[in-house]
């Protein structure tokens, strides 16, 4: 593979890694801090 191939492959792989990182980040940050300490959290369907 020549240099151009490596560069293009690198760009696509970086985009791939970015997408995975974005999905993981979004999953972690979901949820409301308002639920913390709520006595009836188990009853809550939110």
């Amino acid at each position, binding site marked *: 593979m*020549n240099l151009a191939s490596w560069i293009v492959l690198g760009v696509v792989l970086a985009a791939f890694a970015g997408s995975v990182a974005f999905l993981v980040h979004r999953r972690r940050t979901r949820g409301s801090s308002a639920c913390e300490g709520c006595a009836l959290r188990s009853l809550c*369907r939110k």
Partner: protein
Amino acid sequence: MTIDKLAIGSTAIIDSIGGEGVGRMHFLDMGLTPGTPVQVVSRAPLGDPIQILVRGYALTLRKEDAAAILLRPGGPEASEAEEAEQGDDGRNAYLHDHNAHPGLGEGGKYHSKDHENALPKGTVLTFALAGQQNCGKTTLFNVLTGSSQHVGNFPGVTVDRKEGVIRGYPETTITDLPGIYSLSPYTAEEVVSREFILDPGTRGLINIVDASNIERHLYLTLQLMELNVPMVLALNMMDEVRGNGGSIRINEMERILGIPVVGISAAANEGIDELVEHAVHVARYQEGPARNDFCGEDDNGGAVHRCLHSVMHLVERHAAQARIPARFAATKLIEGDPLVEKALKLTESERSTIESIIRTMEEERGLDRAAAIADMRYTFIQKLCAQTVVKPGKSKEYIRSRRIDKVLTGRWTAFPIFVAIIALVIWLTIDVIGAPLQGLLDAGIGAAGEWVGGMLERWNVSPAVQSLVVDAVFNGVGAVVSFVPVIIILFFFLSMLEDSGYMARVAYVTDSFLRKIGLSGRSIVPLLIGLGCSVPAVMASRTLPSARDRRKTILLTPFMSCSAKLPIYAFLSSAFFPGHGGLVLVCLYLLSICVGIVVALVGKYAGGKSEAAPFVLELPNYRLPQLRNVGHLLWDKTKDFLQRAFTVIFIATICIWFLQTFDFRFRMVEAGGDSMLAWVAGLLAPLFAPLGLGDWRVVTALISGFLAKESVVSSMEVLGVLGTLTAASAVSMLVFCLLYSPCVAAIASVKRELGGRWAAFVVVFQCLVAWVVAFGAYQLSLLIL
């Protein structure tokens, strides 16, 4: 006589409320208390439910629920005369010695410095935004925080709790609670809302009410005041009240209630600064309501007053230990709230004393406990309104809505118009507007792909990397992105229907039919939202008060063909049935509805007979959809779709490209049949052979649909599936895609609402149903095509 027997246009007075449990409590909370006049306005096309006018707003009830409400002859005049006989007993004697001006919050006059209880500087002021359904909470939340949460004209649009910071006040947070009618523990929303408000972390409460329907909305206000949390009352839609000739003496009202009252119009951004100023003040100085006693000593003989105060004294110590305000604890104990009773940890003798006090009250008052407490609150509200509210005449909006309803909910016109509207939405979305725009975008993406392919060729980029960029990224992801216009247009129409108030009418009109298949009229809203996306549709099922209806609706929602499947239909029909895309689509939608009905009927009979939950729905006035709201929603949906295209679908496409380009020794394969993917999909292929879909590439495309339905198209494009299909197997593929398991995001929603077992059931069950129906469709197609 009962309400169901009352002729259209007739008025009578409620004598008593029969029934028991949640439904009965809900009727009382909604203002259907003994002595209240009701008028039957109309009946749904199939004769059930009934629309009634009570306390100035339109409410729908099923006939069997209405049969539990006993009436006595009389009209509004008789009721007013009774009220006049009772007279004003001076119960509203002012608790403050302020004069009318300056009132609370005017000219910097807020509170007595003697009782100042300021929070330390730097304390974060956490507010709860509470109010009944469809009173403009989310509109106010958006104005306060500058966010763009979805707003609709259907009771219960907010099904999730949202937080934000009030603009200009960085030390605040505000939480938009779901709409609730009371603080009774009958729905999870009510329990969670009251727990949130009572949490020591909550510093203040903004209670928003619809000023054009103030009596019923103040019912929740009184209960919130009993919680003794610093609060402000926001009278929303004041512009509408004024426009219809009404007015509210705000200073008088705040003096009687003992909380700051501010007239606002959230939609027009009026009065918001004053509201925030008051809210921040009461929270910072922890000024609780100056009044939380609403029972008059001489009201109807004073039985409720004596009972409440006796119970309050009895439970005072327990309430302090449980950190529940004594007044709230006492009313809830009398109403029979099991959660409060448990929290108070009463002794057996205390319980029996309280029971005896309540029984004495019931005998003296002539009403059962729940009705007596509801009546006490509404009596206070009536007197408050008599002193402070000049009721508007029948609003222009109401009169206009009644006229429109004569057609849209008319006996002979309702169903044809409903079908015509849905057909028009699909036709406009797919054929008229969506297809040309999609074609344009597709051509643009194709041209970009060719240009990039040419560049890569010139740079001598290796064939594998070229294939990765052109086949996977441009052809795969690009094929999905080109459907953005179709998705946006579908959501545009759905949000117009919801924002205008038509969705609530659809629930009203279809309730009778949906009950026959074991669902509720309210189920139609999640099902219609399911035409857009199953994830919000599953969440929207939270507006259903009954767990049974909720579960059934969630299980049926995936049978509604979501918009993510549109690209599959368009892709296959343009290849195999050119020029007949609209017809194919209508057939598919009809098939999904028919299969849904059959599944619902099977569920109804297999599940055995169980009591239907009451159907109580408020019909909002028709409104012109607000462009800003529709714009926000469309932006959200576009963003969400593009995010999915460049994350989940991009990842899935790259993985599929990798698996179908290399073998297990990571060597690039000459023919796709030697790839890793071909081997794995080949294991499952025999299962699909009876459907005419036995090729490994078809199976791969179907598997990728678990990640996101749009991936099916990109996979078909990357793998060249079209060459493996015949017209008959394309029909089979269309039917299987229509009915098989929803995507991972939708399954996760089902898991969140019903648990892992039901989520697994949905996957397996839908795949089975899809296989059986696709098999039938394939055999039929072999005979016809």
